[in-house]
């Protein structure tokens, strides 16, 4: 009986892992495009804030390794601000990093996909047979912001409670929404042939 449970748990784990957040790559001429249909970042606390008429900033960074995983070939970062129209019940996204862009009247899925589309990378010069790995990091800016004194300076002084949390957090802060889908190894040749 105990063995049966162990095996069942193992396969459930494998199954969950297969459904885990995945990054999809697509090679379009000299650009590498990203999508992640399984990743939904307009969810949970950020979604609550959006549906409460507050704009929410999402920071994204895509890292690309070529040849091996010891060397990051290139990274791209961007910030998106999403807001939710209370009356139209549709999302609006602004890419505030240069080049800035904007898209409106989108569903949550469309808004997420639009953000990922803006993260495409130029892969000119990358050999077609070289293995590539990619990782997309997405973090929702939490209500506390990121500057040291922002929101912490009051008439009583500086609140250090939040400050220490931020100072010692190399990782996302506890409770901060974040996603890190990955892909690879895969070659450009494989992607051009249609394999992810």
């Amino acid at each position, binding site marked *: 009986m105990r063995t049966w449970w162990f095996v069942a748990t193992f396969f459930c784990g494998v199954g969950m892992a297969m459904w885990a957040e995945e990054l999809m790559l697509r090679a379009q001429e000299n650009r590498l495009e990203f999508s992640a249909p399984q990743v939904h970042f307009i969810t949970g606390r950020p979604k609550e804030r959006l549906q*409460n*008429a*507050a*704009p*929410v*900033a999402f*920071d*994204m*960074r895509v890292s690309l390794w070529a040849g091996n995983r010891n060397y990051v070939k290139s990274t791209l*970062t*961007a*910030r998106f*601000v999403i*807001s*939710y*129209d*209370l*009356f*139209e019940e549709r999302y*609006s996204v*602004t890419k*505030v*990093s*240069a080049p800035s862009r*904007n898209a*409106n009247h989108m569903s949550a899925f469309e808004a997420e996909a639009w953000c990922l589309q803006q993260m495409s990378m130029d892969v000119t010069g990358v050999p077609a047979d070289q293995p590539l790995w990619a990782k997309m*990091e997405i*973090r929702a*800016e939490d209500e506390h912001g*990121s*500057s*040291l*004194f922002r*929101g912490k*300076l*009051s*008439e*009583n*002084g*500086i*609140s*250090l*409670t939040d400050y*220490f949390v*931020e*100072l010692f*957090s*190399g*990782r*996302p802060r506890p409770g901060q929404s974040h996603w890190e889908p990955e892909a690879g190894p895969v070659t450009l040749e494989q992607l051009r042939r249609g394999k992810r």
Partner: protein
Amino acid sequence: MHKLSLTGLLTLLVLATAPLGANTPQDAQDVNLQDSNLNVNARYIIESISVAPEKQGAKLSAPLHMEIDQMVGQNLDHSLLESLGKKIKEELHVPDVNIRIAKGQMPERVVVTFETPQSQSSFDVNVGRFLYHSKQGWTGEGTVTYRHEGNDLSFGMISDGDRLAERYAGIQAGFERRKIGTERVGLRFRFLSYHQQWNNATLAAATPDQIYRTRQHFIPEMTVILATPLTWDFGVDFARYRIATPYPVALATSGARTESSNAVVSTLRYHQRWGSGSDPDQQELSASYGIRSATGVFESDAIFTRQLADAHYKYKHGHNTVKVGFLAGRITGDAPLYERFILGNAETLRGWNKFDYRPMGGSHMVHGSIDYSYSGFLVFYDTGALWDTKHDREQKQSLGVGFSEGGFEIAVAFPIRTGAANPVFYVGVNF
């Protein structure tokens, strides 16, 4: 005595100005999330605002009520609502205020609700002041506060070389209950225990029996809100201090003696603010008058009366900020050194060194200052006089430039006088 630590200064500057977003995958670009281009809801108009539960809303001060009401009819601005939420949180002493926004009765109108969850306890750590002064060294104060059901329990540590003729360092503990039976009456007890360090100039100017090594205070006080925003604090400051010089008659048996200074304290305060974060013009006025009187009724060794009046006015228009301050004080009788007035620190006669001017302070004081800043760049002028007898009275002046933003300030100030002018440098937060 204290040398400017370049490394420490740079560290402070970096801490104060740099965002700690190195761990987040973002561009360096910082964005105002409330920009109407970024929030589609900024085009909607606020139909109504309320505070829930209603009982909490009724506790808010009239100026804050007015500020909230002014938002009705304006476009939705989340940053302003957050700033109002912060003020509500501070006034009600609640751990958090949630802002709820929903569709209103009319098209393109929204209703805003500030929800104040009634949580019963919270914990906070605060740096009350942090300062480096090139003539006086470091000053720092930190407090830990535990709040539970309207009771505040605090414990803090301090080392202050700025505000008095002495450097005092030690602990501060307190208990406060903001409402006793009624919303208008609060009670607090404070216990302070310090040991002293003295500058050579003060030691040379004072008589040995004026110099104490330690002092402790126990201060029970009540606060009564007379009529918002006018409050009245009253209580008793029971202080005792240990003087290193013994009584001549006790020379053989004791190396020190303890004296007491038990004073009735009473302070009237006024604080009013006009305009909110979104208004082009904002004004703030705070003023107080305090009297401390130590008499034989409380078996005080020191018999004196100390009066202090101060007023500060601030006007902000766009990037321009003007601040005007006024202080006046008078001591009659024989007060311990920690009661005496000081000029020539990071708040008064900036540019003068208090140990060069009057190392023992004075029993009479008048001071005025004017600060002007544009986008944080600051210029100021201070003038004042400190004296014990009329013959000593001499007006001093100083000028300075610096940068001031939020609670952070860095400046260089010069005394206006003939001969060599040694500039004073200071940097700090919330002093």
